[in-house]
């Protein structure tokens, strides 16, 4: 996982609520057994007509936002299916940060595992950013994980909350299994006792 400190990049506005992971990465791309190569399929059904023509008014097809690495979305982003493919697709496309008022729980976890920083700002702050990104050409945001801030260098500044441990893992790019195995001895002890609880055995 690539460590994250600070990123200044073009921001893309996706002004929709309850964007579900079925839209982020439609089911037909869930059959692959690889972890990479999902970027081209990000928001596939919103990007292309059934006959394969680009949908001109969809923001991912707007040349003004080419190269964006920060996505601004509305509330309850990435709800629905647990598919981590949604995080893989966003990351593979180039997004390192998503800003929204709220995120769905499972995606919140999946994003962290893939080095994507999720910045929860207030509804009002997100509305401001959505509007700025639509109206101001080449609208750049700076996201500092260390300071937990989103700024635009033209007066906008907002702070976001993040769990200190999640922040540490994102900043260091740490692998979770390795972290858990620091507790291997505690796990062995717990497990040998827990296995006596026959009523909690699977088989």
């Amino acid at each position, binding site marked *: 996982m690539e460590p994250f400190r600070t990123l200044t990049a073009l921001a893309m506005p996706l002004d929709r*609520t309850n964007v*579900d992971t079925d839209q982020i990465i439609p089911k*037909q791309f869930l059959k692959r*057994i690889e972890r990479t190569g999902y970027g081209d399929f990000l928001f596939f059904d919103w990007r292309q007509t059934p006959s394969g023509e680009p949908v001109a008014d969809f923001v991912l097809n707007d040349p003004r936002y080419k190269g964006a690495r920060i996505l601004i979305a509305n509330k309850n982003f990435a709800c629905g299916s647990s598919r*981590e493919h949604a995080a893989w697709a966003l990351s593979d496309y180039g997004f390192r940060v998503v800003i929204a008022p709220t995120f769905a729980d*499972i995606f919140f976890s999946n994003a962290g595992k893939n080095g994507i920083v999720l910045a929860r700002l207030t509804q009002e702050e997100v509305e401001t950013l959505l509007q700025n990104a639509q109206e101001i050409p080449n609208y750049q945001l700076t996201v500092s994980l260390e300071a937990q801030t989103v700024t635009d260098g033209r007066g906008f500044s907002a702070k976001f909350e993040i769990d200190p441990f999640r922040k540490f893992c994102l900043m260091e790019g740490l692998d979770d*299994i390795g972290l858990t195995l620091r507790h291997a001895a505690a796990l062995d002890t*717990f497990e040998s006792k827990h296995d006596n609880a026959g009523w909690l*055995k*699977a088989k």
Partner: protein
Amino acid sequence: MSTEPKTLFEKVWEQHVVVEPEGEPTLLYVDLQLVHEVTSPQAFEGLRLAGRKVRRPDRTIATVDHNVPTTIEGRLNIVDQISATQIATLRKNCADFGVELYDVNSREQGIVHVIGPELGITKPGMTIVCGDSHTSTHGAFGALAFGIGTSEVEHVLATQTLPQSKPKTFRIAVEGVLPNGVTAKDIILAIIGKIGTDGATGSVIEYAGSAIRALSMEGRMTVCNMSIEAGARAGMIAPDATTFAYLEGRRFSPKGADWDKAVAEWSKLPSDPGAKFDRELVIDAATLVPYVSWGTSPGMVAPVTSRVPDPAAASNELDRKSFERALEYMNLKAGTPLDEIEVDRVFIGSCTNGRIEDLRAAARVAAGRKVSGHVSAMVVPGSQQVKAQAEKEGLDRIFREAGFDWREPGCSMCLGMNPDILLPGERCASTSNRNFEGRQGRGGRTHLVSPEMAAAAAIAGHFVDIRTWEVRQEVTA
């Protein structure tokens, strides 16, 4: 030990804490991981690359459900090569890592959330995970069960644990008696409609109250299944006599003295009187009706007796925009009575409503009637065992005679990863859990309903109020 009254969730949580490192999430032990073909290949590959093993193959089971075809011919020769590869990959992974697999030809194959309970693998008090958001289904047994991503699947395979932050608790009590024709599906659709698709984000819901206690295990599973559609981390229902009666004698249920010991332990799980929840909501069962979803999010539901809502009447600008977009996608006009909406397809099945009781309910409606000439309807049992039981009871004959397709088990048209999909523009009455854009096939339009309502829509050709329709049918006959 503290003597503070505890919730069901807190009791299960506390029994699974491995360590609580300072400043880090709790490391939670996982009793059972369920694995399927779609969200596991990258996890097993991760283990291989790191030279890791599956820590507890005895706490892991696998099946194929998401992309298996539902016709015999389709299963014998899976023409979609990418699907075939994914299934073959699971087979190899299970063989290499020693995980028990309920394969396509197994008499116990089925949707992962249907087979766990029916094999008696799912048990009260367990922690259960699966790379599938509808893992919340297993909470019906008083287990803490939740969906995870593929990185977490790998983490559990390797360590049998997950770092977790403790969620909040949310008690939803449904009190009173459900009116006739109103089902478990309608309870959960009503709840999602009321609190919204992010109404329980960050929380574990405990469903309680007399209407919940009166539900069968199948009904309880339907309710817990769609907890994720309200944004909840999990849904739980306290185990009771209904739970124990369901589990007794199942293949992996404890036997003899172990059974008595297990029941004694499970009986300690219900929330203590006076236990505190972060949030509570009470719903009067008598006010519930059959619901139909009209939009592209499970929160967009309305009583079947009402009309497609007018976006102009939305309480805020955000909702207005999303309602407009939904109506455009669904090709519906505000003000249209829901019972005038005609359907092209009907899907009865899924981890929400693909169990034996669901099929019985749908068959009661279909018996002696015919599917409308312009409707194509299919019934997909949730598992091989559900299918076998239904056939034993003659339900397959009832469905076939009425003109329904009778299929092999799998997730099928709930998410359209196999050949069962809607064509662009087709409208479907579905007993599944999500009405997202394109969920059942690109351009397809999904309306979520109960099995009874879906069967009735198949016969009538449009939505009907099951409470009065059946009476009218009898009078006409």
